[in-house]
């Protein structure tokens, strides 16, 4: 969307955006948690809200957004074939920008020993089922892998009343962002075991248990460390693979990790074909993905005009603090840097913050930490349908579960629009906290 927006803005005559889903927005639509747009909009938006803004920007600029169109192939002479319910469409373009995202590594890819029962999901599928389809994957959960989607799902599952029994991570540090480790895991008391793996899946038809084992420094199971954890769902958050099926149909050069090999201008091995976002390199932050998309859009137009192109700064792709938060520190969540802030007795001041907002945040954290609650509510009348919501202003950390619980009983009308207040929560401190929808018809 960002690429389409920027291409149009830079003067492209016609920009067509082809999307296979019914809605534009991609993976954002199922990421109902907040934390998007910290850089781009200086706000902590949820995924659907961020998507909504991006779609609006593109459409207002004059981009033709065509949904329910599944692109199956493209050619080196820049023709694209898409399937839709009206038939098979061909588009000829002066330039093509690929922004096909990524998919998850699966159980099949990582070959976990044991049986293959019902109840094993990848984190993204679990998220999709729970947030978009109102399907609950289980009640007693083990998560393998501490990628961000897994961490986010740990909190999501907890808010919906499931018990997350363990998160097992093979590496010595969590692979997700420090802010997610602290806000999605520690704050809910979920046990996180590093250098640990699921060494066996147990259960013939339905998952009954997993076997967790410690790993030694070379990654082998430590004999005797096996322990059985009874559970009814195993969630895998074991990495993402750039998705480049379309690129492959034109023999665009890929790297060994399936990512598109581009030059510094984000141009692929075919001149005039650009690649941006997760299909080029899996990135942590939507804001930077958008930024990169915009550059790809601008460069595409520069390519058509024969102007010199801009260079992408690779540093931006992955710059955030990952792994364990440092002990006795506060992980600042105001911006994605995730500075590790400490109170220094000697100087009687905060240390480690990258900017002044960090001090304000740290002070709040120390006295009365606050969080936004993101969850879903039922849409009246339509069976199985959910709408994402969040608190407009943060509530006290201790009240997060109460808010989620209260919202379980709320239902809204199908006609409700994005940003509408659906519920007002009376906090213990007596404030009225609005809960608003973050997606709408």
């Amino acid at each position, binding site marked *: 969307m960002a690429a389409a927006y920027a291409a149009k803005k830079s003067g492209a005559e016609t920009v067509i955006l082809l999307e296979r889903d019914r809605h534009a927005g991609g993976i954002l639509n199922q990421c109902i948690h907040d934390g998007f747009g910290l850089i781009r909009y200086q706000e902590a938006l949820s995924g659907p809200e961020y998507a909504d803004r991006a779609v609006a920007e593109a459409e207002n600029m004059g981009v033709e957004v065509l949904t329910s169109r599944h692109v199956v192939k493209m050619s080196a002479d820049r023709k694209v074939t898409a*399937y839709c319910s009206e038939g*098979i469409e061909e588009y000829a373009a002066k330039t093509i920008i690929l922004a096909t995202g990524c998919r998850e590594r699966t159980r099949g890819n990582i070959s976990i020993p044991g049986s293959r029962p019902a109840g094993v999901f990848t984190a993204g599928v679990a998220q999709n089922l729970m947030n978009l389809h109102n399907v609950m*994957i289980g009640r007693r959960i083990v998560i393998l892998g501490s990628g961000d989607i897994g961490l986010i799902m740990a909190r999501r599952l907890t808010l919906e009343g499931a018990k997350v029994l363990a998160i097992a991570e093979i590496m010595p540090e969590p692979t997700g962002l420090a802010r997610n480790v602290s806000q999605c895991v520690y704050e809910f008391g979920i046990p996180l075991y590093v250098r640990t793996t699921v060494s066996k899946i147990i259960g013939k*038809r339905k998952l009954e248990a997993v076997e967790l084992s410690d790993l030694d420094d070379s990654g082998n199971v430590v004999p005797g460390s096996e322990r059985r954890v009874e559970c009814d769902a195993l969630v895998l958050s074991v990495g993402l693979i750039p998705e480049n099926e379309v690129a492959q149909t034109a023999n665009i050069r890929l790297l060994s990790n399936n990512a598109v090999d581009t030059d510094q201008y984000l141009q692929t091995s075919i001149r005039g074909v650009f690649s941006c976002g997760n299909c080029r390199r899996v990135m942590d932050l939507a804001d930077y993905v958008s930024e990169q998309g915009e550059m790809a859009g601008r460069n595409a137009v520069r390519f058509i005009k024969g102007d010199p192109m801009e260079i992408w700064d690779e540093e931006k792709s992955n710059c955030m603090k990952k792994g364990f938060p440092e002990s006795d520190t506060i992980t600042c969540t105001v911006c994605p840097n995730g500075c590790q802030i400490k109170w220094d007795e000697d100087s009687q001041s905060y240390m480690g913050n990258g900017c002044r907002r960090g001090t304000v945040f740290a002070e709040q954290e120390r006295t009365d930490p606050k969080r936004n609650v993101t969850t879903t509510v039922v849409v009246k009348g339509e069976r199985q349908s959910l709408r994402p919501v969040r608190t407009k202003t943060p509530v006290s950390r201790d009240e997060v579960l109460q808010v989620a619980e209260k919202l379980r009983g709320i239902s809204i009308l199908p006609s409700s629009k994005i940003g509408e207040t659906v519920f007002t929560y009376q906090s213990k401190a007596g404030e009225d906290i609005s809960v608003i929808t973050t997606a709408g018809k």
Partner: protein
Amino acid sequence: MEQIYDVVIIGAGAVGCTIARELSRYCLSILVLEKECDVAYGTSGRMSGVVHAGFNNKPGTLMAKFCVKGNRQFESICRELDIPYKKTGKVLVAFDDDDMKALEGIKARGEENGCEGLRIIDAEEIRRIAPGVGGIGGMLSPNTAIFDPFTYCIAHAENAVDNGAEFVFDSEVTAIEKKSNIFCVNTSKGAFYARYLVNSAGLYSDKISAMLGITKYKIFPCRGEYFILDKIADKLLDIPAYPVPKPGIGGLGVHLTPTIDGNLIIGPSAEYLEDREDYAATPEIMDKLFAEAKALLPAIERTHIIGNYCGIRPKQAPPEEGGFRDFVIREEEECPGLINLIGIESPGFTAAGPIAGMVRDLLGRHLKLEKKNHFNPIRKGKARFRELPQEEQEKLIAADPEYGEIICRCQTVTKREIRDAIENMLGARSLSSIKYRAWCMTGRCNGGYCMSRIVDMLVHDYHIPAEEITLRGHGSEMFSGEVK
């Protein structure tokens, strides 16, 4: 009075389904009882998918005879019933002089069995036929083929139903009594009555037999693990490649087989176990499998792996004996009317047609086999959108816009095809049953993209509550219910 069927068949694997279809040519009432929720959930859905030529089996055995005969019939049956089939041939790859010597023996044995066209080839020819494969020479078997085992069973069952046979799924046979020449078959779905009983229960055939007091059989389960690789067959290997079998292993050695869909499978291992349905994979075997496959085809990588599965051989030979014992296909003297099929291991799938023919002849000794006038030998599968040329695809979309909606992106399966699969003739509604029919959820994303969309269709279009959706029938519920 309850209906008394002429023939009740226990087990809806390849053998049971083929027998049902064969018998449905005649004026007989036929019932198939299956403990799972669909056909091909046992060994028949967990094998290599190869139509063997018959050079591996001991001359004079039923195995040898039926394998060769089955191979000859296979292609025309696949055409009649619209089963994906491809005559790829197969290479046996020799790595040393011992192997080369063994090949001469295998070729001679094959020829004695009646296999045609077997040919010893040199390293150069191997390189031409199977470029990525190592080896100093080998043997080419031109009549070996690959096919889709799920569609085989589904097609036979559907054609049998079309011709009047009945199937009852989720009906596990728990006890059988014989009173005044009528078998009373007790199942988890109640009792069924039969004049003749065909025991094609695969891994449990010895137990079924024992229910009628015939305890002389014992099945030794022997597990074979497989890996499924991404669609690289067209690039790396488009013909099954086997090592020269070493004596006594009771399997054919870890081999590489392209599937009809262009994936590559590696396996199977061979490991005796106690449990007949322990389909778990073990880390040791997984590593070993991969190493052995890589020796055969060095270009494969761990990153090509997209899944794994196991099949279990119903062996009659105990571990200390190893190797193969011949199929037992007989009417039991101690229990007239009971036809036992015991130890139908590889090449049992290839041999299913001739096995069914033999069962028909055994029954023909008692029953009058009168051909039906209206037997329909043809079964047409649903359109496979991705295999059609673009003009055909456009026609389909114009006729039904749901053909334009791609639900499974890895395999290009459309919404209409998923709908056809959900509404299948046998009434199977589990996710695996939908998968085997539409071939969705089988690609490199393991259903990451399409599964939730299929679940959505089941819940909204077919009103199946989320908590009742199963992976493979009762006891394999996928979800705990709704979120809210």
